[in-house]
């Protein structure tokens, strides 16, 4: 019964030579929710942006491979990207309404795709605002600026706007990370409801959200595809150590830490040097936890450690500025 909607085949992406996606191949099923999980900077957004080729808008980016949507290669030169994008709704990290009224935000897409009649547009606006549960809240002020809505309402408006162009796929990039818990829950419920009609790909670094929503999980780590599979299998019994560590790291941080090093305030590459020194003093198999606050370290230290043959178990943000990196020698 399952049918493949998006087929990602050996995709590589580089930002000015920085290898952000490495040989990614995975298939995404129709009318399911697929979650892309992994720590910040692992390439989740990049993969998503490849799927609607918004990546084209970034300077200095190059990519290769194939992405087939309904068996049409969207990287192919002859592909009409406007048509591809029309097939996909996008829900971004923070709600970005268009600089127009609530009504025009929804009507914008249908209008550019040829719906001209006012009565048709009215019907579309009403239909999709109702679908996302926003109609009752805004029906009296359709002509007021969208920017005046609350963040949660704005995100639902953005969802409705994306749905109004009648896509088949909804791409979400951490759609609830800027929202309060109630609004987040609202969006999650919408997505579960929409699953019966749409293929949904959601990027999240919130494991719990992935567990609540996903049918299928893709775990990225430093640009590599670590593991992918049915959600319950991946979550209950991950095949890969790194997936286990990522899931566990968020659940129960009761890994046995043998040594801890606070490297806050140390810049790259000194934090890396200190971490190496600390590891040097440990026996093989022992575990070192470091705390860093240099954003560069979050991607560079794990990268360097892996290059040196150590195992990075956890990369986790513990508060606004600080990250925890757990390394096994």
């Amino acid at each position, binding site marked *: 019964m399952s049918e493949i909607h998006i087929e990602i085949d050996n995709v590589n992406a580089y930002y000015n030579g920085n290898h952000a996606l490495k040989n990614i191949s995975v298939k995404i099923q129709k009318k399911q929710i697929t979650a892309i999980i992994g720590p910040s900077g692992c390439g989740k957004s990049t993969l998503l942006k490849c799927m609607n080729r918004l990546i084209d*808008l970034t300077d200095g980016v190059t990519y290769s491979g194939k992405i087939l949507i309904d068996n049409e290669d969207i990287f192919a030169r002859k592909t009409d990207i406007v048509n591809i*994008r*029309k097939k996909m709704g996008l829900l*971004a990290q923070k709600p970005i309404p268009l600089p*127009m009224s609530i009504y025009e935000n929804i009507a914008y897409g249908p209008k550019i795709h040829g719906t001209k009649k006012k009565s048709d547009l009215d019907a579309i606006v009403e239909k999709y605002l109702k679908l996302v549960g926003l109609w009752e809240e805004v029906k009296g002020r359709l002509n007021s600026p969208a*920017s*005046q809505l609350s963040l949660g309402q704005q995100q639902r408006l953005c969802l409705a706007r994306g749905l109004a*162009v009648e896509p088949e796929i909804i791409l979400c990039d951490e759609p609830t990370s800027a929202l309060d818990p109630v609004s987040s829950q609202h969006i999650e419920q919408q997505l579960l409801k929409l699953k019966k009609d749409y293929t949904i790909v959601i990027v999240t670094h919130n494991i719990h959200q992935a567990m609540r929503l996903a049918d299928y999980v893709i775990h990225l780590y430093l640009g590599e595809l670590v593991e992918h599979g049915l959600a319950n299998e991946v979550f209950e019994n991950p095949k890969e150590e790194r997936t286990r560590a990522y899931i566990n790291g968020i659940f129960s941080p009761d890994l046995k830490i043998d040594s801890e090093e606070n490297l806050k305030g140390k810049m790259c590459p000194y934090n890396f040097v200190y971490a190496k020194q600390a590891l040097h003093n440990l026996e093989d198999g022992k575990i070192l936890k470091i705390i860093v606050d240099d954003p560069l370290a979050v991607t560079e230290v794990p990268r360097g450690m892996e290059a040196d043959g150590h195992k990075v178990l956890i990369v986790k943000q513990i508060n606004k500025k600080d990250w925890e990196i757990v390394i096994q020698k």
Partner: protein
Amino acid sequence: MELRRVEESIFKILMILSLVIVMGSLLGVIGTILLKGLPALNIDMLTKTAQGGYYLGKGGGILNAIIGSAYLAIGGTVLAFFLSIGIAFYLQKEYSGGTRLSNLTRLCLDILWGTPSIVYGAFGFTVLMFFHMRASLLAGIIVLALLELPIMTRAMEEVIKTVPQELKEVSYSLGATRLETTLSVVSKQALPGLLTGVLIAFGRGIGDAASILFTAGYTDRIPTSLFDATASLPLAIFFQLSSPLPQVQQKAYASAVILLMVILAISITTRLLSRKYNKYIIK
């Protein structure tokens, strides 16, 4: 600790001082003009053209200059607008790709911006002479448009540049083309800023005398075609001020009051429009 407090109070004093200088000079200018101009201002000045002998202290008004200035400044601004908006979009990275040509264009605009307006006037005059043409409304409009172009373009370019990338991505993700995105999303987000750019340029256009001195000419009649010469407010002020007769000189100040009012009215209208569209902007 002490030093920091001293430092802070020095900066505070400097800030207040600059504020006083700015406000003071504005009030000084407006005050002088109003004091000297208001007594001489009468309804005739607004409703009558300069009939024979006006500059010798006889009756009449400067309606010809008011209307002439309106034609000149509106015409110049509209012309400059269409040129500027095109150039401003072209200068964006996604259109010109940040090429050497776009940098060269920017350099030219900056040089033009710094060029004194009399040079524009002289250039316009040379061109007119070359084609054996006389000073006219059309020539004045073209020269004013050139004068306004660099200001307007640079202001618009900066505004368009600040439109967030995410906003464009939203539009593209809905399947819009680059043109649709530009026309319906980028321009809406930039609208209040664009209006301000137009206003600044209009202000420079309507207040400039030197560029239109030789190109638009000066007459006592209201122009009826683009090829007629035309009077203008800045030149009316200039000619009245140069008169030896005190009552004519006073009328110069009255004309300045009128010019001030026009600029004020345009400013306020733009502000109001700007505020109206500002509500829609995504921050």
